[in-house]
């Protein structure tokens, strides 16, 4: 070896020695962090500390292995030939010849059988899908109806019925039909009872019945079904927090901005003999997001 080669060898040796010491340090730190993690965990755990100790332990291992691979080993790059993916012509032709002679010829002679087998496979596949139909009931009438019925009292989430005087101008409360206690019933029957300001009401002709300045709309956005929970009393606007559809509650909750295209369906209301607010029927239209046969008449149930 020449002097220069010896120098280079020594330099490299010094570098790998240093890297080995560094890697040893990082592994040692990882061991300490792992012990620390064990202790923290035994003591009852502490989320932030666990995260930091895991970070230190895994970083230590990662840094040590990285140093080992890149500096200590420092393996030279390797060069491989890369054959093209397509098979060489001879092997392709040999395969084709062999195939034609054995499988292909046989299949060609029996093309009728092959077609019938494919037909059997397809029919069987379809038949095997049928159990999926058991996953749930069909939509039937469900999307057209809610649990509101004529005579059903409007109640607060607490279950308390409401008198017309309970809701003043600019007030809004969430209401359900009395007796709707389950999440399923509340999901599509949820409604908002709003007290409008004097003379603000400007409902289109033929709108469902109201009581004084009180109107009730479905709380389900007609866009993507979120609860239309934000009321801006000054503008008499209901705002959906999901996609910001806005509805003018003085004019039948018509959408005035945002992606919703249909008004919130209105609930006809009246007052029962005891002076509580009641529904006079179901919503005037299907609640919630639009579906393809929305304009169909719902199937009328036999009384």
């Amino acid at each position, binding site marked *: 070896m020449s002097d220069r080669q010896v120098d280079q060898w020594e330099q490299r040796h010094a570098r790998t020695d240093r890297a080995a010491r560094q890697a040893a340090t990082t592994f040692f730190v990882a061991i300490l962090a792992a012990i620390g993690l064990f202790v923290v*965990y035994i003591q*009852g755990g502490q*989320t*932030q500390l*666990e*995260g*930091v100790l*895991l*970070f230190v332990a*895994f970083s230590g291992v*990662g840094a040590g*292995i990285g140093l080992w691979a*890149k500096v200590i*080993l420092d*393996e030279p*790059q*390797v*060069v*491989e*030939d*890369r*054959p093209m*993916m397509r098979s060489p012509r001879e092997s392709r032709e040999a395969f084709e010849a062999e195939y034609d002679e054995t499988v292909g010829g046989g299949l060609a002679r029996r093309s009728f059988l092959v077609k019938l087998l494919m037909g059997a496979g397809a029919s069987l596949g379809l038949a095997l899908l049928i159990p999926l*139909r058991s*996953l*749930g*009931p*069909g*939509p039937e009438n*469900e*999307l057209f109806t809610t649990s509101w019925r004529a005579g059903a009292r409007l109640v607060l989430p607490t279950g308390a019925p409401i008198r017309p005087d309970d809701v003043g101008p600019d007030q809004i409360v*969430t209401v*359900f039909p009395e007796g709707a206690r389950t*999440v*399923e019933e*509340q*999901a*599509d029957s949820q409604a908002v009872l709003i007290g409008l300001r004097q003379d603000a009401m400007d409902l289109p002709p033929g709108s469902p019945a109201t009581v004084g300045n009180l109107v009730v709309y479905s*709380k389900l956005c007609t866009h*993507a*079904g*979120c*609860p239309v*929970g934000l009321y801006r009393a000054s503008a008499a606007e209901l705002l959906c*927090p*999901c*996609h*910001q559809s806005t509805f003018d509650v003085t004019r039948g909750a018509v959408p005035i*901005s*945002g*992606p*919703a295209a*249909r008004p919130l369906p209105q609930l006809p209301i009246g007052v029962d003999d005891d002076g509580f607010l009641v529904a006079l029927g179901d919503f005037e239209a299907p609640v*919630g*997001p*639009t*579906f*393809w046969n929305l*304009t*169909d008449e719902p199937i009328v149930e036999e009384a």
Partner: protein
Amino acid sequence: MPSGTSDRTHRDGPIEALARWLDDRLRLAGGGRKYLRKAFPAHWSFLLGEIALFSLVVLLFTGTFLALFYTPSARSVIYEGPYVPLQGTEVSAAFNSTMRLSFEVRAGLLMRQVHHWAALVFVAAIVVHMLRVFFTGAFRKPRELNWVIGVGLLLLAFGAGFTGYSLPDDLLSGTGLRIGYSVLLGVPFLGPLLGFLGLGGEYPGTDALGRLHIMHVMLIPAGLLGLVGAHLAILVRQRHTQKPGPGARNDNVVGEPLFPTQTMISLSLLAFTIAILTLLGGLFEINPVWLYGPYEPFSVFAPAQPDWYMGWLEGLLRLWPPIEFTVFGVTIASTFIPGVVLPGIVFTLVGIYPWFESRFVTRDQAEHHLLQRARDVPARAGLGTGALTFLLVIFVAGSNDVIAADTATSLQAITGILRVAAIVLPPLTGFAAYRFAQRLGDEPSVPEPASQP
């Protein structure tokens, strides 16, 4: 042979013994030797896919832990755990088990948060990896199949994310599920039936959590693992692409040997990925369901923001104009085009891009193993930049309410600007990128290696 044998026997460790035991039965030495020295081209950008893979590893381990405690049931129970503000509240068993994981199970909160962070990083790593593959032309023949598998993995990652964050049954997750169900409901003819079958009835359904749980912990992970297996098997078969450079040609592979260097680099990256994810999960609160509270169908809070990768879908829903129409008795919901058709078109275009490019842009049917620079195919640079611009605008639109509040601008103005931007900006940036790539391509910025034949 004789001298070698005696030399080997006396330093026979357990690994050597195991290798010999296996080779006695499976004849592995010949093939194994080839893999020891397999070349793996080295460049930092080739590790992006590995970050996605390692995030998936973290997801599987943390997810298994979570599944041991989670109860996929909407059954109503009274919360009696240590979190005072919710004590005595009626919650679902699913929410209750999530609270227990967060407050009572040792390291449970860490696992939950690492799992959620790993999901965000998983999708991000897939997307950045795809961008690398796209702009370097790594999807070209013979790798079109792996590109499509990659798109399938991205779709499954979306499915995993959506089903996953619906599980805790908190107020935010219920809202996400509500929107997903509503978009499905708007699909002509099939929507209502599919929605009812999926949830076991009208929203919220009786079986939703159980169904989502099985999808999240079984069906989607099985699909992910199957596709990852295929993705890697094809990678090994085709070998990795490489950047052109001294000695690197289309018909060779220059790189680190698989053993030990590349394996150790990958292990190092695995350790660092876990390190970062555990740090995020330990220090940075994510999805604090106790603040959101249990799901009530009539409650919602604003501003509601989904996980980042859902932002573009959310933005499409927010930007789409309120148009609904009925043809032949079939009503097209205002969510159908932005919620189903446009995302479908986006994924389809991304999936078929390799064939589109080789057929109409480059008219190139040859095998390519050398990577390109973005400027080498100006049309690709332009199309890619335009598409990215569109996705970015609609992603921003997913937060239009937050932006409006932060900038004290009216929501309508922000939405109007973004609507215009989504249509006008992509062609502009796309064309600019196209011309820029052409200009760069004209001037040889890197001197050609003269010594190469």
